[in-house]
């Protein structure tokens, strides 16, 4: 019985090892988003219903720009566009984030956590910062949109 447990443990640890060694490979979902990125593009950042979030720094190797077009009446995000400078995981994270955010209300979008993105794309620990950056990009775009609206309100 003891021996069998030991054996089983051995097998399990070998499986764990295999996971470690395959960590360098990208998950198929990352590759899919990378090869066919969704919602790439630019919107006019001067429009009042467009919020732009630019996060990261070239020196760190990641820059994300995410733009949302919001319906002023309903507060629903109608369109999303992104452009990303960064590794494959960063591009996939932002591409997935645009898919996620589209059709959400601002409140729903603000509640998106980086863990959702990391889980969907099975990001390894070393790439978790990509998903955090995507979360930051969404938050920053919402903030930008709200700031624009705030400025506009008194004139109405």
């Amino acid at each position, binding site marked *: 019985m003891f021996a069998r447990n030991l054996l089983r443990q051995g097998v399990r640890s070998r499986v764990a090892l295999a996971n470690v060694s395959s960590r360098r490979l990208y998950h198929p979902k990352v590759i899919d988003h990378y090869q066919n990125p969704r919602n790439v593009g630019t919107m006019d950042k001067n429009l009042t219903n467009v919020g732009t979030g630019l996060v990261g720094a070239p020196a760190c190797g990641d*820059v994300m720009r995410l733009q949302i077009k919001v319906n002023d009446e309903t507060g629903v995000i109608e369109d999303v566009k992104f452009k990303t400078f960064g*590794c494959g995981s960063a591009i996939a994270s932002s591409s997935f984030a645009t898919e996620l955010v589209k059709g959400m209300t601002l409140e729903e979008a603000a509640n998106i956590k980086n863990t959702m993105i990391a889980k969907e794309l099975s990001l390894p620990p070393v790439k978790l910062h990509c998903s955090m950056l995507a979360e930051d990009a969404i938050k920053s775009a919402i903030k930008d949109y709200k700031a624009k609206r705030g400025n506009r309100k008194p004139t109405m």
Partner: protein
Amino acid sequence: MYKFRIGAGVRRFSVSALRRTSSSGVKQAMPTSGAQPPQGSSISLKSATRDPSEYGTRPIYLDMQATTPTDPRVLDKMLEFYTGLYGNPHSSTHAYGWETDKAVEEARANVAAVIGADPKEIIFTSGATECNNMALKGVARFYGKSKKHIITTQTEHKCVLDSCRHLQDEGFEVTYLPVNSDGLIDLELLEKAIRKDTCLVSVMAVNNEIGVIQPLEDIGRICRSHKVFFHTDAAQAYGKIPIDVNKCNIDLMSISSHKIYGPMGVGATFVRRRPRVRLDPIINGGGQERGLRSGTLAPPLVCGFGEAARLMVQEYDADQAHIRALSTKLMDALLSMDHTQLNGSRIHRYPGCVNVSFAYIEGESLLMALKDIALSSGSACTSASLEPSYVLHALGADDALAHSSIRFGIGRFTTEAEVDYVIQALTERVKFLRELSPLWEMVNEGIDLNSIEWAGH
């Protein structure tokens, strides 16, 4: 003497024939008539090359600074020692020992001939990393009582830098010379850095990331005039650029076998005898290799290494012409693209190493787009970390550019068709990634990226 017929057909094949069939990216139809290779063998008797079907279609190999494919002629030599000549070369009491010893000494002479050294000055080791450790720690520890200072450069290979760091812990002082934007050291700065208690200057011959050739002859002259030992890490230079240890006043040199189409796991240190360089050996034991590196030699590896060295001399002119032509073609095509730059000196370089930065694209994502080409964004030792290359940092490149550099290695078996494919693939995919890049868009709009306050994380 034994006569071996295994792979005997390999011997007489020209390099161009090997080149044609060794291009792994392009699948070749193998001739089917005539002799058939044995079932399950990866060696095709008909074409005398490895049968690509055995390994499947694989990426084009352009990472020659990491390692080079073994020349089939080298393998042919090595097989002798795996089949019949199995004696221990240090066994002096019987014929088995004598015959391998003779072969090992032949290999030693071949290795020495490339750099104009005496065969007795060649010490076989396990590879260039051991050579560098042996040279730095050996010299420092032997002369450490009176001389406690070492000079090296910021762009050295990790194993030199790490050995130096280790010696610092032991109480030695190390000066890390900076390099200019071309990657070359300043000779005046070197001369000023030499002190009375300096025992060793270590400067690499050809840089592994940017292919820059340091002025060895001038460095050697300065070191000799100050009576300081000069060590050079020539792993990437040996056999590829002309080096004469006597002309350059080199006292110690590190050599690797698997960078010259030889087997992995073997290298050699050149240790000068006149004037004598003394080392404190890292590995003690039976006193083999002049007592500097004990342990039984591996005749298959050593003789494969010797054969590879002999071939480097024999094929030198053909290799140089071939590599230079392909390198010029690749470099011209890549640099004709917008916002690309060559890293390192344009003149003082080994053509087989081309390091190019593609601005506004991240290196790792470019490598991911080029998965049909085996490339590296820097040295294999540091590609596991997310840090940008310290070598490019030392050249003064900003972080963003260091993040977007790719190294292309061209060697004896690279074909023109492969280079053409690489050029086309890069042109297409750089365009694709730049369309995805917010930085590229900003630059095209005329925004200065340095004027933006980035929220780093």
